[in-house]
């Protein structure tokens, strides 16, 4: 079974981002970029499926600038077999990304597509579901367990009240939640080997996809700051304040 994994290059999750003074966006000059954490979980899940003998080939795809090759090499070092970069320097919305991924799916014909549930920059949580609509495949979002059984995949999903399990006909789409697995680190020999693995570069034009957007960002601001209150000295003082000053208990 061929598995396609989509990964995104985003600002590293440890970076505290700052809004630009002109409110045009956040300042990404000279900040560390990494693979989106939910995408790392997606790569790991694909590698585990291959180790179990369920997956035969893992193709990793990213849509973004030339520099996204770094994240693709990381995925190759973690165990993906080959990589595809759809190169675009535009800031793409989830729908545009889903359309490009649909074109890659048409080309590669995977049985399973694994994506992160959301990217930690735009926080959209849309691409996997949109790809589901465009391909007509079933979707198992926010997965905490994935089990392939015959021509179906059982996905246990993190939902508001607990867990839900659905059975999806293959081919299908899975988006990862935090508890699905703990991604491994790439070993040095594997990082070296990854440099020799194939990485193909495509363009939206070559895939026949026209990029349009119906959403425009007017401005980006820092959130309203919450000011620090006071330190109380004892539990009795805390209870007194909550009862008489804040009046919340």
């Amino acid at each position, binding site marked *: 079974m061929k598995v396609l994994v989509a990964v995104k290059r985003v600002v590293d999750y440890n970076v505290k981002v700052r809004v630009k003074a002109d409110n045009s966006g956040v300042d990404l000059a000279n900040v560390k970029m990494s693979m989106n954490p939910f995408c790392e979980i997606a790569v790991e899940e694909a590698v585990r499926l291959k180790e179990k003998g369920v997956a035969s080939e893992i193709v990793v795809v990213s849509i973004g600038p030339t520099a996204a090759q770094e994240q693709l090499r990381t995925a190759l070092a973690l165990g993906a077999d080959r990589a595809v970069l759809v190169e675009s320097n535009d800031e793409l919305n989830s729908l545009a990304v889903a359309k490009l991924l649909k074109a890659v799916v048409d080309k590669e014909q995977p049985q399973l597509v694994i994506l992160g549930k959301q990217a930690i920059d735009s*926080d959209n949580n*849309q*691409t996997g579901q949109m790809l*589901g609509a465009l391909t007509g495949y079933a979707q198992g979002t926010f997965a905490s367990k994935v089990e392939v059984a015959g021509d179906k995949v059982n996905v246990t999903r993190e939902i508001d009240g*607990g867990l*839900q399990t659905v059975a999806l*006909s293959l081919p299908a789409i899975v988006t990862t939640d935090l508890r699905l697995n703990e991604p491994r680190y790439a070993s040095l020999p594997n990082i070296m080997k990854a440099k020799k693995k194939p990485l193909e570069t495509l363009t939206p034009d070559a895939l026949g996809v026209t990029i349009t957007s*119906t959403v425009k960002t007017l401005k980006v601001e820092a959130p309203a700051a919450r000011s620090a209150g006071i330190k109380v000295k004892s539990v009795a003082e805390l*209870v007194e304040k909550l009862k008489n000053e804040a009046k919340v208990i």
Partner: protein
Amino acid sequence: MTILVIAEHNNAVLAAATLNTVAAAKAIGGDIHVLVAGSGCGAIGEAAAQIEGVAKVLVADDAAYANQLPENVAPLIADLAKNYSHVLAAATTNGKNFLPRVAAQLDVDQISEIIAVESADTFKRPIYAGNAIATVQSSAAIKVITVRATGFDAVNATGGSAAVEQVSGAGDAGKSTFVGEELAKSDRPELTAAKIVVSGGRGMQNGENFKHLYSLADKLGAAVGASRAAVDAGFVPNDMQVGQTGKIVAPQLYIAVGISGAIQHLAGMKDSKVIVAINKDEEAPIFQVADYGLVGDLFEIVPELEKLV
């Protein structure tokens, strides 16, 4: 301009988040219709008709819609959406699951988790885990939007008398089946709807120690949450997680116990009216957002607090 709000429910109860979503629709302005897609959901339709400000309720009652499988409900919603200027759903795990599928079927971008309405086409939404707030404008013919409940005060659940109309869709797409659900059973209020939330972090040391928080919460009538650190350490299940990658809460009182205050946690609770922080590290960032901070050993403070409230 007519707005379609997708009701959040489990065929037995209309979820409170629906009222916040209707509030967002009201802020946009125009007639508000509510779609109840489910199975045996007639009573939910009746309840939705009572919501203040709702003009019409559409009920799609079909076994295929019982568990809101996106492969089945998205085509139904996309088909109905063609008659509307906006389609809104709550940014619950359910709304986040089916609505992007609807947007892609309509070939429009979705705007996720809005926290404010500036005008009928302009909205505010958090990005970068709440570290920035973007103002976005949509030129889509149909605006497809998920609504973060804490951004909008709920409308009244009663006072309306909308007409109820039956609608139907294609039903089962034949691609997915519901296997089962394991829902946490608790007598405590639901996290996102609770007036008081008590949350524990890595400082709790283990899952067993959360019993101190459960017993304090029961005395206060509160829900119990946790930081991502506590979930990652395996102390408690993920459905208790408060934060950017978990639940977003905004109770009257939020008590953070043994939580350092990572930015991703703050993103989930900083809109609470009053925040109390209990932590042994007086430099912990949680104190920078807390109205009342108490430095000390939580294993002494929490039992004492339980006695005094």
